[in-house]
């Protein structure tokens, strides 16, 4: 049974944890540096990226996770988690940092403020149609040609990637954990 952490500093930790347990992972809530030990994978949940970034710095998790990412730890970031894994943040705070584990630039709230938050259907390669819940979602604006794009979505301004993979690092701009469809979590856990 793979041991999968969920970064539990802030955000929708409970939904991710429940879904990971459902697809057969042993789930660990990661609040302190030592909780990162012995993990096969880690999920960075949705939440507020500025708050999570600050709490990762004050808890000392940031440098250790950075090292683990370099060593090849499998990490899946949704929404705020995608922002934290990106190489460049557009419309973020001037001092906002990220792990640069995914070769893409992401625009915070790129799909608009809450009033524009939406549900749609996302076509995922190898899986098929899954529900996509986009909440103040980040938009992937530019990306490297060697990034594996697992799903594109057109919200009226052309196709943008919404689910991507770069080696062991996965990111998506929507919230599979808020639905009852666990296929993405299953895919991630099976890859470990």
């Amino acid at each position, binding site marked *: 049974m793979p041991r999968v952490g969920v970064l*539990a*500093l*802030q*955000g*929708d*930790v*409970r*939904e991710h944890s429940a879904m990971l347990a459902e697809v057969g992972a042993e789930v660990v809530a990661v*609040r302190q540096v030592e909780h990162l030990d012995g993990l096969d994978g880690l999920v960075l949940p*949705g*939440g*507020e990226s*500025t*708050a999570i970034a*600050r*709490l990762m710095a*004050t808890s000392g998790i940031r440098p250790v996770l950075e090292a683990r990412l370099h060593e090849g730890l499998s990490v899946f970031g949704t*929404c*705020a988690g995608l922002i934290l894994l990106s190489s460049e943040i557009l*419309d*973020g*705070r001037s001092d906002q940092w990220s792990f640069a584990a995914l070769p893409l630039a992401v625009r*915070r*709230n790129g799909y*608009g*403020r*809450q*009033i*524009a*938050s*939406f*549900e*749609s*259907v996302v076509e995922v390669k190898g899986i098929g149609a899954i529900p996509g*819940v*986009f*909440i*103040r979602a980040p938009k992937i604006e530019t990306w490297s040609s060697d990034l594996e794009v697992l799903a594109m*979505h*057109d*919200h*009226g301004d052309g196709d943008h990637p919404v689910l991507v993979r770069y080696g062991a690092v996965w990111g998506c701009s929507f*919230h599979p954990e*808020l*639905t009852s469809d666990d296929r993405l979590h299953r895919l991630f856990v099976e890859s470990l």
Partner: protein
Amino acid sequence: MNSPHDPSTIGSALVKRGLADMLRGGVIMDVVNPEQAKIAEDAGAVAVMALERVPSDIRRDGGVARMSDPQMIREIQATVTIPVMAKARIGHFAEAQVLQSLDVDYIDESEVLTPADEENHIDKWAFTVPFVCGATNLGEALRRIGEGACLIRSKGEAGTGNVVEAVRHLRTINAQMRRLTSADDAELFALAKDLQAPLALVQEVARTGALPVPLFCAGGISTPSDASLVLQLGAEAVFVGSGIFKSDDPVRMAQAIVEATTHYLDAGVVAKVSTGLGAAMKGIETASLEQRLAERGW
């Protein structure tokens, strides 16, 4: 937002409640200007509540408290990247329409402002922007959810710096939910009548043991230990009003309450962030209050 390419839905219950889910484990801070909003975001707030006066000043000044000036809300939206909430008076759907037109991320139909309707709350289903409402007990919480609220905060007593009412309201809501989970199906009809709450929601709580929307806590939280206390009592996030910017050192107080909210089960962390913090807001003993804001709302 809809386009020929994307048959998507905005304003669904899932996306409205979903934003509340994203705020869990976080601190929402009252701010009265862009400078305070920046301090809140720097300290790790997950959202700010834009208002003209914090509750303790509303209490002191008296008079009618209304929705904030749109100019001030826009300035705060331009300053921070986190969600911006704003308050409308209870029942004042026109203020809520104005706030929605300003693209605020959440509307608080709040007892801190002077109520505009003494019988009816806003029909919150009519809005695309989600609403948070206060509650002192389970019946009140379920009535608000029935009207379309996507997030409930226990009311506490705003502007007092005294956590006692917040504790009372959280404990009441939780005790009433526990009572429902041990009732048999036939008892739920009478319990719904006693709670003056929609039967379907009463049945749902009886089945799940929890509210169908997140439960946060507000009203009187003014120290890191207060945050830890209410989270241990079942709140999933905290609203801090006067407690930050009426303290001696707002920057440190804001950071400390954020840390204590994340690490609420770790008394060592709460002790560390509480050390040398300076004075919390002075506060008011609730027995001496002339106006109880929590009594507003029906």
